[in-house]
């Protein structure tokens, strides 16, 4: 052990980074370095943006859902226009997309996917999970949604319609799940705890 690295810590395999960068990684580095070289972007601006993206979390979405559960008029406004509805709660849809809320009911269960890439309502849900960007999920969610949901542990009864929303252009979807029965006396904090990221993608339903 070198004198530079003598602090105690848990055993782990050494972290090595010996993979050669791929084509697109080299392309990204080249474009980024050119933008910086030409003075069009500063390295700190890129780092700032990454920090903002990393700091976003699904709790914005959870708060929208809980307010919609408790306030029927707000729910209607949110369903009518997701962008202005979110703004009422101080959430700005910063990427100029049409934030769209899909209401689950006793008869309809929505499930969101982006088969072409990884379109996701980042302003309200943060960064998408790895599985959302995975080709397996992206292809199978549209072909066999019930089987994919079952693998997530979510069994949707046969008489409930599954509605898959493939996000391909300007809309960014968030599912408004059904409020579970028996939560009438829950506080806002308790309700927010039920509305996890996956319930707003539509691969899970909130349960008590």
């Amino acid at each position: 052990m070198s004198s530079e690295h003598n602090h105690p810590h848990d055993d782990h395999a050494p972290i090595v980074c010996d993979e050669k960068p791929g084509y697109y990684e080299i392309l990204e580095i080249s474009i980024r370095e050119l933008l910086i070289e030409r003075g069009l972007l500063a390295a700190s601006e890129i780092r700032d943006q990454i920090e903002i993206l990393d700091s976003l979390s699904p709790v914005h979405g959870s708060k929208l859902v809980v307010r919609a559960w408790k306030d029927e008029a707000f729910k209607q406004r949110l369903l009518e226009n997701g962008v202005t509805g979110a703004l009422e709660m101080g959430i700005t849809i910063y990427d100029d997309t049409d934030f769209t809320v899909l209401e689950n009911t006793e008869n309809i269960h929505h499930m969101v996917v982006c088969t072409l890439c990884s379109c996701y309502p980042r302003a309200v849900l943060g960064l998408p999970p790895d599985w959302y960007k995975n080709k397996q999920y992206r292809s199978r969610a549209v072909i066999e949604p019930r089987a994919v949901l079952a693998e997530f542990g979510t069994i949707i009864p046969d008489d409930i319609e599954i509605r898959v929303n493939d996000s391909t252009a300007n809309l960014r979807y968030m599912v408004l799940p059904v409020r579970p029965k028996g939560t009438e006396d829950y506080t806002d904090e308790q309700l927010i705890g039920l509305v996890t990221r996956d319930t707003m993608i539509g691969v899970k339903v909130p349960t008590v």
Partner: protein
Amino acid sequence: METIEHNPAKFAVGDEALVAQKFPIGHYRVPMYMRGKKVRILRRLGKYINPETEAFGKNAGDKLWCYLVTITQIELWPAYQGKAIDKLEIEIFEPWLEPVKLSTNEQ
């Protein structure tokens, strides 16, 4: 003041349309699995910058109508294993939609 819409939407809510079966090279927001499928217009979403030219850095302000369309899973995948009530919704730009022509048998 009366304004003239120079680029009116070609499809109305409830209309049926066929997703074009074309395979050009470039940047397209129509997944392969939708091509050639018959859909129903659910909503006119409005006009948006054409992603097919925007992808190449061109934006002359040309905006295209975009629609939210629906199709049943069984029409989409003949071997669909789920339920007959299951559906899929997707956004399609107008140049990718063609009117459904009645066949001679139906006329």
